[in-house]
């Protein structure tokens, strides 16, 4: 071995460079390839990517070369983007004109000098679309919604708090370590139970292994709050497993919300589209879970604060209402009493004034009556006096009249009497008969034989009745 000849690596690489340049210098090739792992340094206007060719069946890659494009090539790419409306990016199936470069330090690469706009869509994208179409077509739990997809998994509600998590990742994944670290050292002191389910997470041919891990999680019957699929950063071609139909379908159908943390900055895998939530890195997946829990805690905190504030307001309002009621009751009852008092006062006043006026009227009547009373006896007396006076006068007058009349009558009577006096009568020839000392004008009691006295004008004749003869007085009828 010690005698063997050797050359320096740089000499070897120089030889390769010489060989390659003698073969490829100044030559340009139109090549059909797919773009993956693309990045663009905007400040230097350099595209870095890989050109790949896939096998006829499935997603296996059969050829790959590093590619870059700057200067005139980058200008052509810009024109391509403008003319097609398609960004020069991963999964683009392109027809590009390349030259082959070899650098002793940086190795073999293809410089893209031109791009054919007619090859707009890459086969990867076409396959991707075909896979997506098939997923929608063959599974009723997957629907296209605008630019995204709605699946059974994405329609699941995340638990309010995520605490128990199953993680599918590769055992050696630095990304998974980031995830665990971020979860366990969160700022809010949330505790998590993280169960690892290791699998190979690259290469389309490992899809079955990955699928079995999902089934294993399901069959443990552990009530996980979420399943996280973690994959650290890597080149685009490593992620083809996540465009696998069966994995995408299983994720879409999985009964526990799936959160993806598949590390790539450029692409969204089909698995990402089928999952409940997709994040760009394992760390971001952890941050999403923490933020989710945080938002629950925030909700609790704000509810607590609300309760405190609202109950305080409630108490304030109730106190206010009570004090208003108290002041209303005391004020209004006082004023009501006052009102009634005033009403009473008014009634009292009315009563006093009306009774006064009644009294006054009665008094007036009384005074009038008294006055009248005082006046009337005097008048009566006067009247009586007048009457008396009148009577007196009348008496005086009538007495005199009467006396005069009487004296006239008396004189007349005197004359009559004088004319009718027995002496006169006797003088006229009449006689008076006396029986038993009594004058009689009838002979009824005079019986024959009775002693009678016949008185004449100048003598009394004592006689005895010899005979009684009936006499009717016709003798005097002269």
């Amino acid at each position, binding site marked *: 071995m010690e005698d063997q000849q050797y050359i320096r690596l740089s000499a070897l690489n120089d030889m390769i460079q010489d060989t390659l340049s003698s073969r490829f210098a100044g030559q340009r090739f139109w090549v059909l390839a797919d773009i993956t792992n693309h990045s663009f340094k905007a400040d230097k206007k350099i595209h870095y990517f890989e050109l790949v060719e896939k096998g006829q069946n499935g997603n296996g890659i059969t050829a790959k070369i590093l590619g870059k494009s700057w200067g005139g090539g980058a200008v052509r790419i810009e024109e391509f983007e403008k003319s097609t409306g398609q960004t020069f990016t991963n999964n683009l199936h392109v027809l590009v004109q390349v030259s082959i470069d070899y650098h002793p330090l940086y190795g073999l690469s293809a410089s893209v000098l031109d791009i054919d706009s007619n090859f707009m869509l890459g086969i990867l994208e076409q396959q991707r679309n075909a896979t997506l179409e098939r997923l929608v077509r063959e599974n009723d739990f997957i629907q296209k919604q605008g630019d995204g997809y709605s699946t059974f998994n994405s329609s699941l509600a995340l638990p309010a708090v995520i605490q128990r998590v199953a993680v599918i990742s590769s055992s050696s994944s630095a990304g998974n370590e980031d995830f665990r670290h971020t979860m366990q050292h969160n700022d809010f002191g949330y505790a998590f139970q993280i169960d690892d389910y290791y699998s190979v997470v690259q290469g389309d041919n490992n899809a079955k292994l990955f699928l079995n891990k999902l089934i294993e999680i399901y069959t443990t019957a552990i009530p996980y709050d979420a399943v996280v699929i973690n994959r650290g950063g890597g080149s685009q071609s490593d992620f083809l497993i996540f465009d696998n139909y069966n994995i995408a379908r299983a994720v879409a159908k999985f009964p526990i919300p799936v959160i993806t943390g598949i590390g790539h900055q450029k692409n969204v895998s089909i698995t990402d589209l089928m999952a409940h939530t997709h994040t760009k890195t394992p760390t971001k997946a952890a941050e999403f879970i923490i933020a989710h829990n945080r938002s629950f805690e925030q909700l609790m905190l704000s509810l607590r604060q609300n309760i405190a504030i609202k109950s305080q307001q409630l108490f304030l309002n109730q106190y206010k209402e009570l004090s208003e*009621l108290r002041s209303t009751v005391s004020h209004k009852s006082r004023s009501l009493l006052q009102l009634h008092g005033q009403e009473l006062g008014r009634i009292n006043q009315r009563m006093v004034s009306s009774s006064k006026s009644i009294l006054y009227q009665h008094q007036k009547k009384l005074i009038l009556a008294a006055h009248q009373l005082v006046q009337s006896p005097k008048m009566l007396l006067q009247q009586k006096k007048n009457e008396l006076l009148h009577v007196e006068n009348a008496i005086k007058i009538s007495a005199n009249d009467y006396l005069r009349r009487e004296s006239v009558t008396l004189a007349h009577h005197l004359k009559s009497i004088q004319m009718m006096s027995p002496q006169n009568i006797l003088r006229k020839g009449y006689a008076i008969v006396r029986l038993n000392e009594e004058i009689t004008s009838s002979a009824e009691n005079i019986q024959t034989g009775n002693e009678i006295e016949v008185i004449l004008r100048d003598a009394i004749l004592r006689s005895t009745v010899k005979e009684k003869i009936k006499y009717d007085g016709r003798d005097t009828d002269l």
Partner: protein
Amino acid sequence: MEEILTYETALSELTAISKEIENETISVDTLASKVKRASQLIEFCQAKLKNTEAEVTKIISRMESPEN
């Protein structure tokens, strides 16, 4: 007989009395007793509020520092 009074019923009764007095539909005969009842109700409500507030404050402060 012990009266079973809740804050709600006390408050509604109190409000009713207040309205009655305010609308002057109350008779003077019952005014004193009603005002007395109102003052009892206010006292009851105040006490209930104060107790509840103290309790709620305690609970909230416990809520804010759960380790105690």
